[in-house]
């Protein structure tokens, strides 16, 4: 049987099938693979790290509870990103109803989150961090419909076809939104990008 330890990397679809058949270790592997990916996606969408981590937990709980609902006709990543995206959008709607706005939503909040080891660079200067923060703020300033597709395409590097399934809009609309989102962002970030 395919096993991570022996160097043969099972596909996501293999893992979910094993999990559906009762292999809880397969679920653990799914969590390990997707926990940071989902955190980054939801964080970049919502802007709050604590809420984002809660939603990542909730995403995995839904995968656990509804494992039999996944059918192999779609990619597993499509399914899990759809769950995560729907949770994030619901949270955004709740926020609008609460009319709650926090400065921490604009960027990193006080909770100490580690950067993943392979990306951590102690030499990274203050300028780089400020640039990242500004880019993040401008992503947050986009309307949710552009923000979601930009994150999925440019941050998560998903294909247009997969994004179309996750967001449930036609392929042409995805491409148009990505283009318009990028044009809006590059206009706001001109002074950074043209340096």
């Amino acid at each position, binding site marked *: 049987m395919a096993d991570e330890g022996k160097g043969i990397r099972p596909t996501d679809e293999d893992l979910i099938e094993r999990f559906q058949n009762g292999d809880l270790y397969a679920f653990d592997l799914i969590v390990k693979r997707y926990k*940071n990916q989902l955190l*980054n996606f939801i964080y970049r969408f919502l802007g709050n790290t604590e809420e984002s981590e809660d939603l*990542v937990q909730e995403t995995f709980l839904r995968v656990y509870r509804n494992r039999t609902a996944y059918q192999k006709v779609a990619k597993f990543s499509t399914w899990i990103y759809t769950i995560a995206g729907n949770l994030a959008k619901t949270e955004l709607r709740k926020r609008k109803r609460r009319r709650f706005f926090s400065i921490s939503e604009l960027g990193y909040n006080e909770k100490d989150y580690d950067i*993943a080891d392979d990306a951590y660079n102690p030499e990274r200067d203050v300028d780089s961090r400020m640039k990242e923060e500004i880019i993040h703020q401008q992503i947050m300033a986009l309307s949710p419909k552009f923000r979601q597709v930009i994150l999925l395409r440019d941050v998560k*590097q998903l294909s247009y076809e997969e994004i179309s399934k996750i967001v449930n809009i036609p392929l042409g609309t995805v*491409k148009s939104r990505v283009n318009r989102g*990028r044009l809006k962002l590059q206009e706001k970030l001109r002074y950074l990008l043209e340096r």
Partner: protein
Amino acid sequence: MKNCHQFEELISGYVEGELDHKSNLLMEQHVRECQACSRKVKNVEALCNNLRELPELSVSPDFENILRARISIENKQRRRLSESLFFPWQVRVPVYGISFALILLAFALVFPRVSNQKSSVPQAATDLQWKGGQVVQQNAASGSITVYPALDREPAINIISQHPSKFLSRNSEPTIASADSTNLLAQNENLDELVYQTSY
């Protein structure tokens, strides 16, 4: 002949190499001739690189432990629920029967008191007050107060919600003379309406 706005729509396709040959050539020519579009193309390329290189956050170290704990709690709750639903009939029938009987008894005991209370509470309750955890009506003319001690449930809540400014919190001290058995004037049969003398 396309204008800048039309070429703008092709920028992402051009940057990602997804345009057909003809559109690609047209775009290349336009970018050579139009400074504004050329700048936008360069900016979109730089933007895509920056977005790709945004640092990745990691979940907190106890993330997986918390998730496992939540799953464990859910599983226990689900097991408890299924156990309670699937007791043998010899257990379920008497339990459901007793529960139903208790509910009926509670309803029989409460309902007449509630309806009596409703009939004894004045409809024009403008002088009702909530003091010390009870609904109280001041009778200025006779110098007495009427206390409805049992009105601590729905009728009282309905009255309070109609006249919020009249009511103090449950912990507030009464501002009129306290009513106790030494100045009790009268009480009705159900003991849900007692009249006290407060001025002499």
